């Protein structure tokens, strides 16, 4: 059973976690801008967030592996469970790399600002709770 405090902060906590994951993915795309045959990847943020919120974290357990012969549970692509997708190519390059630096930089900045927005909101919630506690 989740406490109401947990429930208050759950949305932005999940959002921040997903934003951080997406930021790492975009950083990977930028780092691999010159790697031949590298395919730029991303995930659909809103759909992944909805899926993460709908799932009860208590039942979100992995298969228990107690012997080396056990098969680990089917691991999803992102740590949060959303499917990773490949970015559609606007302008194909000769070496098979699909990283478009303009798109990646754009998304990176966009994601960073939205991360900060979530931070501001979670900070506001914490401040509100502190006001309620301390009066």
């Amino acid at each position, binding site marked *: 059973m989740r406490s109401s405090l947990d429930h208050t902060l759950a949305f932005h906590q999940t959002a*921040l*976690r997903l934003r*951080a*994951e997406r*930021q*790492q*993915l975009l*950083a*990977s795309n*930028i*780092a*691999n*801008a*010159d*790697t*031949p045959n*590298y395919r730029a*990847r991303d995930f659909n943020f809103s759909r992944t967030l909805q899926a993460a919120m709908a799932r009860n974290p208590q039942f979100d357990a992995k298969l228990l592996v107690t012997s080396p012969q056990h098969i680990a549970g089917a691991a999803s692509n992102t*740590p949060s469970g959303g499917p990773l997708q490949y970015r559609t190519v606007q302008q194909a390059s000769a070496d098979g790399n699909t990283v478009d*630096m303009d798109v990646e*930089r754009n998304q*990176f*900045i966009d994601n*960073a600002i939205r*991360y*900060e927005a979530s*931070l501001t909101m*979670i*900070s506001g919630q*914490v*401040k509100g709770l*502190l006001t309620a506690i301390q009066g």
Partner: protein
Amino acid sequence: MSLFTIFHVAGSGMSAQAQRLNVVASNLANADSVTSSNGQPYRARHVLFGAVPVAGQENSGVAVQFVAEDQSTPRVVHNPSHPLADTGGNVAMPNVNVVEEMVDMISASRSYQNSVETMNAAKTLLLKTLTIGQ
């Protein structure tokens, strides 16, 4: 924590680009080296990047897989007064294409800058995260 992984990812990009820049510098420095330890003219070298896993996530970082020698034929220059000229008066010069190397250099330094900015953005976000509840 994903934001900390960005430091590893961007760091791998920076070291790979730095190695590429190193190879470019070596090629440019040896653009006129007509002989080397094996008696042959210097051959241009090129790095080959590959995506590598970082912190358990596949294909997230980048690393130099190997440094390959350019197999194209040496540039032949007619200069009979050169001490290494053959009987026809031709000298085999390194197959370094200076224009290509300069372009490679610009590309490497731009990619390096991109990685630095990525790292800076991650640092800003982490520092902001530390101020939650303050």
